[in-house]
């Protein structure tokens, strides 16, 4: 078995996400590698949404355009996705509810609603019937589905859990008896290890909590709302303070206030909300207050394409805010990377006393990956120059913004006896009070701009593929999986391609990049934006030009197939 692709489609409000998640979880329980992505509209009811699940015995890094099994909850899904079906692809739908005039052999009719009413007494279980039917088509172990359904619905009630299992079984058996066709392959659980199934937002939230973030303030905005909600839900059990702010201006100012007082703090938003945070971002720079901002990108400008994906904010975050000051920018590759990078983000923020941006995007935020259990022994908390009460009490005439060789000043906290912590958004003296001095101004600018010197060494991009390959694919953030797969597939075809991928972008690792690009003949920048922002940044920082660009800005994620086609048409030509 190479891989198998499920797609569940229907209207918003039909429960696409629930079916998709249950399917993905059931497959992951069989120790398979799963990747699931979501395509949804900015509405609560109606429209067209789908959930795509790619599963394989081998690691899967990104999504795919192929469909082996389409679960259509309405007519539109059949119309839209039939063309994506593979040779042996099958579309399953409820023929009693979905009128399709001309049936073709790839279509299999299961009366979802009727079976739901007959077995569980309510048509709301129709989706579960469909889930059972789908897994029956690939001859997957029903007991695993039953186990997952029970776990998920037990929280509602035992009865609901049982009704779901019955409905799933009805769909499963009906299909066993009535399906006479053939599917691309059967799916069977494989030998361990059992992996976790987690999406980007959950990984960011869990990573932040593991990294010691105790304060989170946010204002809901797709695609980052899930981070706020996840942390909110855990706040009572895990001693977090999570506050829904009145707007994003308040959200970042709050995170800064909490951090100044001594706790690790963050906020999460999207481009529109980050635009409102711009002034506070510079406040963090000026007052040297560590803070982490998660920016889940979606296509702009303005409200843009709210539920879709893009990498349009790289240059924005590099230049965010008036004035000049140091910052760091990280961009996780996938959910696993997001978990560990949050730890890095909080450590950098405190070691250098700067704002740190974690750039995700809708694709990363909403997509699920199976990954190895997170290794908590890898979590290292480095709070940098933070002073304990005792350490601070030994310092004579403590001043918050003391000039030091590194540019980073020891940080005491308000409330320490015998110490006063004073800072100002105005230019200030070492003791934090407002000043008009030209001489102090120059020293303070130098401190704030250059204190991250050396940090670029921790921002080294990832090299992948045959070292000697003349063609280099470059990219950053969530395009990692697609680029990596494209590199593998092209090398299998006999092309020589390697990858240079960034999950940390600022301070820019100039020397490492120059080194990695030595000997390259073709340099192909792959980004989800229209203007190739990293190409511009890379050129500004290294003087190296890209020879080609593969860009996508229709709001949909870049896939390996998209890259390969563009490569063959444009780059090689």
């Amino acid at each position, binding site marked *: 078995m190479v891989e198998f692709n499920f797609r569940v489609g229907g209207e918003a409000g039909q429960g696409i996400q629930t079916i998709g998640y249950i399917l993905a979880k059931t497959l992951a329980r069989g120790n398979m590698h799963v990747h699931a992505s979501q395509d949804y509209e900015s509405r609560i009811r109606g429209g067209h949404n789908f959930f795509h699940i790619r599963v394989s015995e081998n690691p899967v890094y990104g999504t795919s355009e192929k469909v082996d099994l389409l679960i259509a909850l309405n007519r539109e899904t059949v119309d839209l996705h039939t063309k994506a079906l593979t040779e042996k692809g099958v579309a399953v739908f409820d023929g009693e509810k979905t009128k399709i005039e001309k049936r073709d052999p790839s279509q299999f009719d299961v009366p979802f609603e009727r079976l739901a009413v007959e077995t569980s007494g309510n048509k709301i279980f129709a989706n579960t019937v469909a889930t059972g039917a789908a897994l029956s088509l690939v001859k997957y172990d029903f007991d695993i589905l039953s186990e997952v359904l029970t776990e998920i619905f037990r929280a509602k009630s035992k009865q609901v859990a049982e009704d779901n299992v019955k409905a799933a079984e009805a769909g499963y058996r009906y299909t066993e008896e009535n399906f006479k066709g053939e599917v691309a392959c059967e799916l069977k659980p494989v030998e361990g290890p059992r992996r976790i199934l987690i999406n980007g937002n959950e990984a960011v939230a869990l990573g932040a909590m593991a990294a010691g973030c105790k304060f989170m303030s946010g204002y809901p905005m797709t695609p980052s709302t899930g981070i706020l909600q996840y942390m909110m839900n855990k706040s*009572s059990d895990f001693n977090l303070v999570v*506050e829904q702010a009145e707007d994003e201006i308040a959200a970042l100012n709050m995170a800064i*206030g909490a951090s100044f007082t001594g706790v690790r703090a963050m906020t999460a938003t999207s481009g529109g909300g980050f635009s409102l945070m711009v002034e506070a971002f510079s406040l963090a720079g000026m007052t040297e207050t560590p803070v982490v901002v998660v920016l889940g990108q979606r296509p702009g400008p303005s409200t843009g394409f709210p539920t879709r994906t893009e990498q349009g904010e790289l240059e924005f975050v590099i230049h965010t805010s008036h004035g000049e000051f140091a910052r760091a920018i990280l961009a996780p590759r996938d959910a696993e990377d997001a978990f560990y990078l949050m730890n890095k983000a909080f450590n950098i923020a405190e070691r250098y006393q700067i704002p740190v941006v974690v750039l995700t995007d809708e694709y990363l935020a909403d997509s699920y990956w199976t990954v190895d259990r997170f290794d908590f022994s890898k979590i290292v908390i480095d709070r940098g120059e933070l002073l304990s009460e005792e350490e601070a009490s030994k310092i004579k005439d403590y001043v918050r913004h003391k000039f030091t060789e590194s540019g980073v000043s020891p940080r005491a906290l308000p409330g320490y006896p015998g110490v006063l912590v004073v800072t100002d958004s105005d230019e200030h003296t070492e003791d934090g*009070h407002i000043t008009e001095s030209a001489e102090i101004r120059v020293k303070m600018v130098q401190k704030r701009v250059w204190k991250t010197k050396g940090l670029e060494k921790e921002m080294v991009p990832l090299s992948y593929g045959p070292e000697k390959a003349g063609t280099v694919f470059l990219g950053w953030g969530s395009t990692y999986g697609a680029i990596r797969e494209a590199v593998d597939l092209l090398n299998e075809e006999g092309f020589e391609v390697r990858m240079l991928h960034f999950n940390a972008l600022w301070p820019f690792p100039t020397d490492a990049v120059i080194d990695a690009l030595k000997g390259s003949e073709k340099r192909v920048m792959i980004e989800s934006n229209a203007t190739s922002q990293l190409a511009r940044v890379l050129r500004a920082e290294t003087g190296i030009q890209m020879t080609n660009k593969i860009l996508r800005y229709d709001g949909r994620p870049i896939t390996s197939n998209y890259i390969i086609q563009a490569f063959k048409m444009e780059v090689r030509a």
Partner: protein
Amino acid sequence: MVTLKDYQGGETAWCPGCGNFGILTAVKKALVELEISPHEVLMVSGIGQAGKLPHYMKCNLFNGLHGRTLPVATAAKLANHRLHVFAVGGDGDGYGEGGNHLIHTIRRNIGVKYLVHNNQIYGLTKGQASPTSDLGFVTKSTPRGVVSTPLNPIALALALGASFVARSFSGDVPHLVQMIKEAVNHRGFALIDILQPCVIFNHLNTFSWYRERVYKLGEGDYDATDGLAAFKKAQEWGERIPIGVFYKEERPALEELFPAIEDVPLVKQKIESRQFEKLIEEFM
């Protein structure tokens, strides 16, 4: 023992005769009388002449952005609720730029004490109208006089369900000291709108203009627990201006409502990454 000397700050950059001096004196006096030490105080101030106040005394200080004192102060209080957290700023800062935060901070009833130096003008930017400038007042930005209805901070706060609403006058330091002490002892958010003459840019609302009009609420049979009466009283402006506590109500402060900080302040809690390992089971 805490003394005024402990709070003695450096040189000020306010104009001679400024109404802000009375506020500075009152703040220090109130803190001394409450026996609060400088290291237990965190002032979060905004931008404007008012926002400079904490620089002229001794305490922890976060002098943040114009209009953004309240979110910073709110989070600071949540991060360490043992601190005495004050927010300090001008009328432009709090009622203009930061208006949305005022609304929601009142709703939260966080234990932050908010001092608004209301001089009915933008001082630091040299004399433009503020949200509280009186109708007809000619300023650099209103050559034909103010035409927008002045914002009534007392009525606004009352309408939002504020649990402590007071007005004082920087020309009456003992009264202001009393108000600050009551605010500090109050459970939850306290707004003190302080009438503060600006001797350079406001030649309408001067020391003598206020002095002729203000009278103290506590001296009659005023009941500060009657919200409707308070709202009615809040409409009084012009011939006679009431100062004192308009309204006061006992209810839990926001910091009492987070299970995470029921006992130990958030900042005193250790980071324990390993405790989150059990959450992994959710994703298995």
